[in-house]
């Protein structure tokens, strides 16, 4: 069982340090970001819709996948044990980490034991979640991100803004300028994406050939066989999985699948939901070590970091079905406008809004504001390949989390007023007479109220409110029918 919350002093990169509304307001002022995001999410959305429509039994696939994942959550300890035994028998060493600090310590020790100060990395959400690169840096080890977008973000000392296309907030000119400043040996004067990708290829090829330790995550871990699955496009994953002598995989326990054949459904769901492809260019499946092919040492760090606690929440646990496809980001009207950074976590968008606060506990930083980062429109639920009812979990977290003071005050007042008919009528009249001067102002804003007095101001900070009607229905009825 993991510690309840991350130790104070060191914030995990899944803790929002700014309340979502304030971070979002900042992002909304960035027109370039909005344009890039709009184009990216629209393109991927359309590709996804086309390839999903090709699969006649898509809905059954989603149902099956959701059931398999729920079964995994029901049997986590048993499956962790099975995976551990199978992987160990195949030549891997399996470590169990209850929290981020434990996982970082295990990985750092393993890297140190190889006597290197540089490792290559495949994009992995789990290692971002625990802040592994920062922990390695503190130990004097440089982790080189090898996914092109992650490399861009790393060279810029920035953080990813999308799970699948982390550098979507950069344009080609900015990337060329960045490479010229930060990439050793770069000297191209074109910002053609093919030229830029070619430069990254040359730079990383040298890095791969020299690397002795690689760090990866996994999209799936098969309990039955002890196999790990890495899904990718560029081939940097394959480089990391096969060239270095030592491979360290950091895998969240919820990535487990019971049987090898379960991969059949999940490998159909993931690429179509994620990049909108029938299949991604490269998928590697490996089990322990194979003499003469690939690394001679494989370490698997199974990470809990709050997952078992989340699995115990009957409503919230469904968030752990997530296979990180990012489809929910691409359809989210809030994400499309504010981008990933506003969520203050490596997990952005709808999934971030339900996962970050659950992994950390809602009292961590400003994570309690994340479940409000949604209009509850339900588009995320419709596209989710493992059928996570994200809106239901958002509502659940709003109900169980700390309430803003203004909402508490407004609800208490409303409850008191509505319990008594006379109080209610008096309140309506007061609202109407109070609304009169507002109406004069409101006419200029199309009959909407831009800013109401506290506590209702909490509502109007982010939206307009309709003005109170000049007459209530009840008063109108009395006036026109009773006399």
């Amino acid at each position, binding site marked *: 069982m993991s510690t309840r919350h991350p130790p104070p002093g060191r914030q995990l990169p899944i803790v929002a340090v700014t309340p979502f509304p304030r971070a979002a307001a900042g992002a909304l002022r960035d027109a370039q970001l909005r344009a890039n995001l709009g184009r990216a999410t629209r*393109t991927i959305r359309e590709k996804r819709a086309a390839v999903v429509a090709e699969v006649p039994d898509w809905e059954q696939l989603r149902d099956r996948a959701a059931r398999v994942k729920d079964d995994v959550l029901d049997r986590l300890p048993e499956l962790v044990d099975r995976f551990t035994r199978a992987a160990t028998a195949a030549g891997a060493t399996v470590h169990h980490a209850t929290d981020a600090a434990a996982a970082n310590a295990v990985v750092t020790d393993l890297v140190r034991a190889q006597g290197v100060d540089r490792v290559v990395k495949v994009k992995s959400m789990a290692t971002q979640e625990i802040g592994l690169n920062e922990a390695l840096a503190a130990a004097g080890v440089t982790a080189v991100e090898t996914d092109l977008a992650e490399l861009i973000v790393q060279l810029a000392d920035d953080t990813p803004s999308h799970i699948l296309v982390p550098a979507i907030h950069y344009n080609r000119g900015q990337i060329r300028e960045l490479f010229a400043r930060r990439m050793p040996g770069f000297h191209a004067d074109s910002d053609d994406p093919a030229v830029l990708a070619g430069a990254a290829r040359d730079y990383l090829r040298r890095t791969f050939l020299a690397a002795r330790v690689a760090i990866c995550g996994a999209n799936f871990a098969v309990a039955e066989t002890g196999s790990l699955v890495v899904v990718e496009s*560029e081939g940097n994953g394959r*480089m990391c999985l096969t060239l270095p002598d030592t491979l360290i995989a950091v895998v969240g326990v919820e990535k487990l699948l019971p049987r090898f054949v379960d*991969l*059949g459904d999940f490998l159909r769901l993931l690429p179509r939901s994620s990049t909108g492809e*029938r*299949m*991604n*260019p490269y998928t590697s499946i*490996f089990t322990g070590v194979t003499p003469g092919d690939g690394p001679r040492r494989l370490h698997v760090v199974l990470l809990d970091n709050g997952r078992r606690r989340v699995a115990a929440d009957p409503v919230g646990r469904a968030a752990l079905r997530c296979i990180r496809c990012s489809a929910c980001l691409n359809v989210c009207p809030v994400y499309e406008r504010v981008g990933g950074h506003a969520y203050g976590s490596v997990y952005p968008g709808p999934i971030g809004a339900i996962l970050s606060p659950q992994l950390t506990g809602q009292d961590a930083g400003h994570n309690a504001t994340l479940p409000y980062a949604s209009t509850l429109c339900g588009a995320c639920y419709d596209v989710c390949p493992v059928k996570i009812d994200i809106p239901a979990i958002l509502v659940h977290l709003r109900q169980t989390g700390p309430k803003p003071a203004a909402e508490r005050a407004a609800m208490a007042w409303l409850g008191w007023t509505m319990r008594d008919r006379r109080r209610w009528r008096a309140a309506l009249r007061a609202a109407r007479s109070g609304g009169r001067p507002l109406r004069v102002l409101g006419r200029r804003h199309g009959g909407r109220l831009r800013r109401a007095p506290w506590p209702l101001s909490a509502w109007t900070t982010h939206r307009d409110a309709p003005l109170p009607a000049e007459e209530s229905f009840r008063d109108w009825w009395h006036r026109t029918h009773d006399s």
Partner: protein
Amino acid sequence: MTPELTALFVARAGDHHAGVHPCTPAELPGLLATLLAGATAVVLPAGTPPQWTARLGPPTLPGDTLTATELDAPGLAVLTGCALAVAETGTLVLDGGAAQGRRLLTLVPDHHVCVVRAAQIVADVPDLVIALPDPTRPLTMISGPSATSDIELNRVEGVHGPRRLDIVCLPPG
């Protein structure tokens, strides 16, 4: 392994921007020679059938002993077979068996030519995971050449894996 599955595989692999070349067994040596004519050398994994190499022009190198740095030599190509292939997704599946070799061989060289027999083609991924002879072998599923869309969503081929993938497809029977 029906003609329909083969046709679907050919179409879908083509969608991934791989070169796809259906051919008869008699045409095979000549076709492979044409595809590989521009290579400085052709890497061959253990177990490559002799008829595949009968007419190759460039020198051949045994894949067993080459290091990653040697495989990185400019102009190198690799010729392999596969374990299975998936029609629905146009995917090649390699498991390190005969005529496939270590995973490095199909990763570091810039040009990969893969021979698929129609009998190796299964319908979809669920069929694949059942048909795999041994799922614990190191498996690589390849669907088109390596690609990225990380810069303004522009597709660029050949980031780290081979920039060119040619699939030669032998008919059923």
